[in-house]
Every structure is written in C-alpha cells, then in structure tokens.
C-alpha cells in the first residue's frame, strides 16, 4: 500500500510537471481574441497573433481591437486573429523576450525605429515590398519621408504604415493670457520665435501663476522627441546629417540652444528635472504646475485634456527664424518571419484590410487618433466629433521635418541624450563638452 501510494504521488507530480512544461504548436493564450465566424473546420482556419503598442485605441485604456477583428472576420472568416496589448514601459522587454524564445507574434504595430531600424535590420522581419507596390505613390504623395522611413538599408520594406502625426508642444492658454505672454505667440500659425519663447517664459515666471513656466524633463526614455525638437528648433540645428549616418547634436546651433536652456534653468526662469519623465511633465501640465508641455500631440491631448481645467493650446516649437521643423511619428505594421508561409500570407491579408480597405482604412486611422499616410483617404475626421480637436494638429502637419529616427544606434542614443541633458541642465556641465561626448558615444553605436 505504501509503495503504491508513493508511486501514485510520484507519477502525479511527474505528470503535473509534464503538463506545465509541455510544448505546444498552438499560439499562447492571448490577452484577447476574436474567433473567426462561419463555422468552418479548425483545419481551414489560420491563426495569427497581433501585438500592438498603445497607439490611440489600438491599445491603451480603451482598445477597440475586438471591433476591428470582427470587421476583418466578416471579410475573412478563414483567419483567426488574437491580440496582446503592449505598453511602452515593458513592451520592448516582452518583444525582446519573445525574440529570444523564438515565440514572436505574427504581426506587430509600432514605428520604423523599432520595426525597420532594429528588428528589420536584424533580419527578423518579412519584406513587405509586395504590399507597397500599389500604395507607394499614394503614401509618397503625403510624405516621401514616410516611404523612406519604412524602408530598411537593404531596400526592403519592413513596415506598412497606417498613420502619422507631428509631435508638438502646448501652452496653458489662460495662464499665458493672464501673464500677458500671448503677445509672444502667433495664434494663427501656432508658431513663435526663440526670443518670444524666452520673453514668454519670463512673463509667466514673473506672474507667479504656476510653480514654474516649463520643466525640461531629463528622466526615463520616452518623450525624447519633445526635448530633441526643443533644442533643434531654438537655433535651427539638426539632430543628424541629411543621410542619417551621423548624429550632429554638437553643432554650434545646438550648443547655442543648450546654452540658452542652461541659462534659463540656472536663473530660475524655467526648471529641469532628472526625476521627471515625459509622463510626469504632462501630468504637471495638466495639474497647472507648469504652463507648457514639450510632449504634446493628439493622442496625449486625448489622454490629458479631460484632467485639465484650462485650454491646452497646441504650438510648434520656438525657432530663431519662426519656421519650425517638427518631429514626426509614424505607426504601422510589421510581420515577424516565423517561417510559416500560411501565417505570413494571413498576416499580410489582415494588414492590407486594416490599412487599405476603403471603409476600414479610414476607421483604423481614426482609432489611432493621428492622421492617414495615404493621401487618398483625405480628411478622415471630417464630419466626426473629433474634427475640431484634430484641426489644430492638422494645422501643424506642414511643419513636419526630417524623419531621422531610423539612424543607427537609435536606442542607445536615447539614453545618451537624456544623460547629456542631465549633465548640462542638472549638473551644470559645459554644453559643448557634453554635446561632443553625446555625439561621440552615439556615433560609436551606429
């Protein structure tokens, strides 16, 4: 009896272990899934997975993936799509872990800096040139920069884009009005000069209406486009050279901008914080702790405007000549090369449906909260309740500058950038010396 019990216990433990560690060819349990309708047999269904970063309602707090997949399954019941929502805090870790474990999703939604410059350049993505054949001219008509950004150095397309936007800044309109600082901005074009920016910051600081007029956030990794655009625009500097083969943040124009910011911080006109990330600065803006944010766009307005008891007024970054060049954001889809031709084909079918379908395409763009990369879509917000809100960001689209995010060593330079800002604005380092150190370290990673 004792032997029998011992054997039974051992066997049950071994079976339990086997059940835990057993391999499976099925897709891992997804966060959400929308099974294909139509009652077709299991063998006829191709199952694919989609991972998406929080891009509007393609993720975030109110994802609409089920609706999108249901619409897709009406046209393609033979493909079952499951999805998982990523966030920008842990998303890269999840993807890297999946790559290391050869357990990547079929489709992933993000921007060229990850899809093209990282995973594509490492040979992990499927060439999507066949999808581009019919749409390249349509996308190029909106922005040739989008076409270039989605193409890898080897000439293959690793991203099929859906939407784009410009990253901008915003001011607290009422605070500026009460501080007498509205005179320094051009409300019609939403532009201002560097001198106007300095005068406005001084006026807001003198008014005492907020704790500090602006906070240059130097912490974390996200939202770097805001501080980059601020520095580059103040004296019309560039972040990289024209062919995106070297970082140029130590140019005289950029050093002059960094020196100006250091002076403004040192004399207490504005603040810099190494403990503040972009999200902290946005929250401080919403709480009226500061009067401007450097990390604004349509998506952030949707997220923070409801908390703000004031009018957030979108603005271009200040520049010496009054002609800003804004950083762009491009989002679209890439396919991981998992070696399964059927899944790759199904993934392409899904991507084409959500990006190019006459009805679903514009709806997919609206769900991102950004603007279409296909010129044929026109104004996708016309006649919707988002039209008024989106018009202010639409007016900033002509200021879209060079999309240099595809420069090599992008991930490493983001860390170096924030470290450089900390050394200059927090520790009082020499702007030229620190900018040189940034460029040397960043170029070494290209």
């Amino acid at each position: 009896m004792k032997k029998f019990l011992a054997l039974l216990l051992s066997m049950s433990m071994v079976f339990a272990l086997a059940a835990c560690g057993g391999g499976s060819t099925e897709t891992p349990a997804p966060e959400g899934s929308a099974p294909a309708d139509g009652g077709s047999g299991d063998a006829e269904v191709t199952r694919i997975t989609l991972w998406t970063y929080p891009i509007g309602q393609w993720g975030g707090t109110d994802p609409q993936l089920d609706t999108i997949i249901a619409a897709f399954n009406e046209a393609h019941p033979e493909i079952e799509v499951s999805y998982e929502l990523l966030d920008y805090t842990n998303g890269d870790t999840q993807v890297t872990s999946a790559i290391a474990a050869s357990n990547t999703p079929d489709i992933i939604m993000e921007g060229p800096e990850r899809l093209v410059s990282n995973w594509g350049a490492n040979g992990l993505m499927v060439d999507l040139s066949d999808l581009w054949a019919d749409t390249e001219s349509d996308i190029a008509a909106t922005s040739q920069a989008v076409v270039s950004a989605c193409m890898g150095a080897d000439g293959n397309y690793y991203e099929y884009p859906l939407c784009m936007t410009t990253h901008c800044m915003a001011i607290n309109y009422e605070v500026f009005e009460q501080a007498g600082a509205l005179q320094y901005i051009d409300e019609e074009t939403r532009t201002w000069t560097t001198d106007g920016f300095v005068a406005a910051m001084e006026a807001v600081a003198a008014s005492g209406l907020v704790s500090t007029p602006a906070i240059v956030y130097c912490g974390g990794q996200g939202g770097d486009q805001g501080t980059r655009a601020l520095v580059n625009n103040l004296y019309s500097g560039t972040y990289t050279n024209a062919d995106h083969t070297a970082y140029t943040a130590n140019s005289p124009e950029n050093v002059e901008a960094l020196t100006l910011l250091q002076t403004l911080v040192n004399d207490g006109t504005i603040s810099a914080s190494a403990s503040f990330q972009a999200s902290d600065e946005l929250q401080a803006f919403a709480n009226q702790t500061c009067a401007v944010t450097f990390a604004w766009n349509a998506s952030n307005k949707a997220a923070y405007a409801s908390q703000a008891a004031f009018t957030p007024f979108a603005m271009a970054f200040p520049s010496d000549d009054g002609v800003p060049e804004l950083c762009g954001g491009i989002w679209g889809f890439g396919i991981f090369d998992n070696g399964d031709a059927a899944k790759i084909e199904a993934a392409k079918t899904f991507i084409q449906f959500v990006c190019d379908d006459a009805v679903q395409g514009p709806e997919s763009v609206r769900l991102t909260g950004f603007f279409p990369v296909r010129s044929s879509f026109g104004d996708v917000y016309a006649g919707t309740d988002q039209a008024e809100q989106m018009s202010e960001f639409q007016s900033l689209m002509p200021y879209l500058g060079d999309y240099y995010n595809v420069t090599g060593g992008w991930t490493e330079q983001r860390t170096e950038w924030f470290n450089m800002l900390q050394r200059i604005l927090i520790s009082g380092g020499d702007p030229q010396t620190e900018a040189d150190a940034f460029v040397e370290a960043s170029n070494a990673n290209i």
Partner: protein
Amino acid sequence: MAQAPAAAKPAKKGRRSEFSGMSRALVRRETISAYLFLLPSLIFFVGFVLVPMGICVVYSFLDMGINTSGTTFAGFQNYIEMAGDKVFWQSLRNTVVIVVVAVPAVTAFSLWVGSAIYPMHAAWRSFFRCVFYLPVVTGTVAVTVVWKWIFNPFTGLLNKILHTGTLDWLGNEKTAIWCIILILFTTSIGQPIVLYVAALGNVDKSLIEAAQVDGATKLQVFWKIKWPQIMPTTLYVLVITTINSFQCFALIQLLTSGGPNGSTSTLMYYIFDVAYKYQRFGYANAMGVILALIIAAFSALQFKAAKTGNE
C-alpha cells in the same frame, strides 16, 4: 560472562545495513522512494536553477544579440569589456553602497522593533506586525507612486515639510541613491520583524529567568541569552536582505531609471538594460555571472561571520 544483546550482533555481510540494521533490499527500496519524492523538486531545481545558471555561464562567452544567427564565440571578451566599462563599475559601486547601508540598517532596525513589540499584548503585537508588513504586501508600483509623490520637487510632501523649496530629491545625484535606500528599507523590514518576533518567542525562558536570578542586566540577558538563540534567524535575515539588496531593480526602474547620470544604476538594473534595451545578451550574462559570484562571496562571508560569532 555478560551476553551481548542480540541487536549488537554484527549483521550478516551483504544482507543488512550496519547502521540501521535493515536489510539492504529494504534500505534500497526506501532510498528509491525517497529519491522519487525528491524528483519533482529536483527536476524544477535542475530545470529552473542549475540549467539556466549553466546557460548563463556559456552565453557569457558569446557575442550574442537578438539576431542569434550572428552569434560568435567571444572568449573572455565580455569580461575584458566589463573591466573597462565605467557604467558597470558605477553600478557595482552603487550596489555595494545600497547593500552596505541597507543590510545592517534593516537588520538592526528589525531586531529593535521585534524586541520592542514582542513583550506587548498580542493585539498590539499583531497591529505593529501588520503596520510594518504592509509595504511588503503592497505592490511595488503602488509604493513607488506614493514615494514619487512625496519626493515631487514642485508639489511633494517632503519639500513642504522640510521647507526645502523645489529640491529634486530623486533628480539630484547626491540625494537620489539615499532616497532609493530609504524606500528599500521601508519595503524590506516587514519580513525580518515578523521573523524576529517569532524567534524571540522561541527563546528558552528558563535561561532568561535563571540569568535574571543571577543578577544579569537587561543588556546582558539580551547579548548572552537571547542573541545566540536568535542567531540562525539573524543569519537568514542577513543573507536574504543582502540578496534582495543586490537584486534591487524594480524601485530603480520605476523611480529613476538609473539616473541622474547613473547615480542610482545598480548592477541588476544595468544587466536588464544591456540585455533588453541594448539586446547584448552575451555581455549581460557575463555581468550576471559576476553578480552571482559577488552575492555568493557576500553570503559566504556572512555565514562564516555568523558561525564564528556562535562559537
């Protein structure tokens, strides 16, 4: 002549165990049963501890990124690079500071609190145990959100209380690591306090009473009677707190991301950064090997010190 007892008769060679007196066949069967019971744990231990450790050591000799097809043998290159990596040494220095400050502080404070609340009424003892254990069971994210609010330079509670203007506690190279140590301290003391209260309950009361009768002071009773008896608990607290302090990661990631200027970067955080942000798995594994060796050395020292203290 006295007759030797039957049990003392030597067992027949090859048939009976000379220790238990059981037949060899029975011993073998019991041994097999014992190993079968151990097998599931052993499989987990080998599969999730020993094998990954081995893989970690092997990978540390590779130049390996996310494109595994491009993996090459690097020999000791990762270790050589580590020797000249300023961020690695800065992270190691920060880690050692955290361990050297946090471990004695946590141990001493836990012992003091445990000693203070042990004689209290059971209800009060439970109350204080709950209070000190609360940060342990509260999620790290929730804890960091609260501390971030306390340390906020513009609206934070600390600056209001101390009248320190807009001092950026977490954004200042001089104060950031001490803020991390403070938070680590509050989240680390819960378990040691509970353990010490339990350990003090197991101290032999007759020895205490005897010492008191002999005229021992409270301090003498503590050092001569209680301290030796709670030494195993102290050793456990020291080792676990040391390991936890060495592996401090979540607080850094959520509060400072290693900044400002790497002043709060720990080895664990840097390893994560190198592996998942820069996707240099070989180099990250090499640092992991070094971290494991350092933790092992610290733990061995603690065991040795505790053993010497007991003698």
